């Protein structure tokens, strides 16, 4: 016989759960994860290479994991900085998922790593939906990509805790309209910081490292409007007291298990408006 079963499950509940667990575990080890998202070729590897070298010069223990569909080129470039680097080949998958990241960190991530930079697969669509347990989500866009990128990829830019413009050395040549870009970013993500960088002209290099270290030492990262959907249960007087990170895309998405009262005390993604015990321990 046919019957209708009320399932009420978040589709990404498994990833979100794994991301929460990873965030808590890494926080307890003193590691802050930075998730870098952009279109292919925006300059993630180029900027990261510089930030990693700088961290090494300053004696800050950092590591990087880079994900690509194919080739180890990015890992080879990043390894020139002298810090621990790992290449992940996603085997056709266009984004990283939290359980996958967890498996790759297992037995590799050196003890005492303060910052782990994760270069996601070059793609502005899919990675945006997957929380990796990061404490800071960074979305990059090069000046060649057009000012309307934030409007074309609202989920990616809307969930960013930091926006980085790259390749400003060629901004003039491509007539990059900085004001228009900033306005578009603010429209989908009011209040998010926008940094201008160029590895060629040495502009803004080191800012990413500074921002990441600040979050690692407890400075609250930006909380995007899009990352914090009002909780379904709010009008019942519960469901307050927690907010969700940018990757925690589906707010009400803990498995409901027909018990809506179980949400408190879970650690959610970064960008909290309120202290999160799991994240607060991050040094």
């Amino acid at each position, binding site marked *: *016989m046919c019957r209708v079963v009320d*399932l009420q*499950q978040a589709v990404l509940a*498994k990833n979100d759960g794994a991301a929460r667990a990873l965030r808590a575990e890494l926080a307890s080890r003193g590691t802050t994860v930075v998730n870098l998202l952009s279109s292919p070729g925006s300059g993630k590897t180029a900027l990261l290479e510089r930030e990693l070298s700088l961290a090494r010069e300053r004696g800050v223990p950092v590591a990087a994991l880079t994900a690509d569909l194919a080739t180890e080129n990015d890992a080879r470039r990043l390894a020139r900085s002298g810090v621990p680097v790992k290449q992940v080949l996603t085997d056709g998958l266009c984004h990283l998922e939290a359980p996958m990241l967890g498996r790759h960190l297992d037995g590799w991530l050196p003890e005492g790593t303060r910052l782990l930079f994760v270069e996601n697969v070059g793609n502005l669509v899919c990675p945006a939906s997957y929380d990796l347990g990061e404490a800071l989500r960074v979305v990059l866009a090069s000046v060649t990509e057009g000012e309307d990128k934030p409007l074309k990829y609202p989920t990616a830019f809307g969930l960013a805790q930091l926006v980085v413009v790259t390749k400003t050395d060629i901004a003039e040549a491509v007539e990059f309209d900085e004001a228009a870009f900033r306005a578009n970013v603010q429209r989908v993500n*009011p209040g998010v910081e926008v940094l201008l960088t160029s590895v060629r002209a040495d502009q803004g290099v080191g800012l990413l490292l500074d921002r990441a270290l600040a979050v690692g030492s407890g400075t609250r990262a930006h909380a995007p409007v899009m990352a914090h959907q009002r909780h379904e249960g709010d009008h019942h007087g519960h469901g307050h007291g927690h907010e969700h990170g940018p990757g925690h895309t589906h707010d009400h998405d803990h498995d409901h298990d027909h018990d809506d009262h179980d949400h408190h005390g879970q650690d959610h993604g970064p960008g909290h408006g309120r202290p999160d015990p799991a994240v607060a321990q991050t040094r």
Partner: protein
Amino acid sequence: MHEMSIAMAVVGQVEEAARAGAASAVRRVELQVGELAGVVPDSLAFCFELACAGTVLEGAELVTRSVTASARCADCAGAWAVGMPPDLCCPVCGRATEVELLTGRELRILNVTWEDAPAADSCREPISEEA
């Protein structure tokens, strides 16, 4: 194309529930998809069909209920449909410090219609799910 990953996640979750509920075949899956969930319904439907092949969901129908994205400004108590691309600054006071997203990020399985395995025959009405 992450609609494939999403479709596979849906199928996986439904399979698990179907196994726990001793279902013999899944006929229909109803999904709630917010405007800002970052999922293209057509593409998802296409991937869903592929992901169902060879599973207990083979041939199941996917019904997507879209949810319009809306936000609210606590500063002036205004609420608006944010549109696409979304505008998350308050259209009334122009500020965004007290803006809260009300709807639009949903991506959830609402309900599933399945056939009970023959052993558990007869049409039991109560529909509540134990698993």
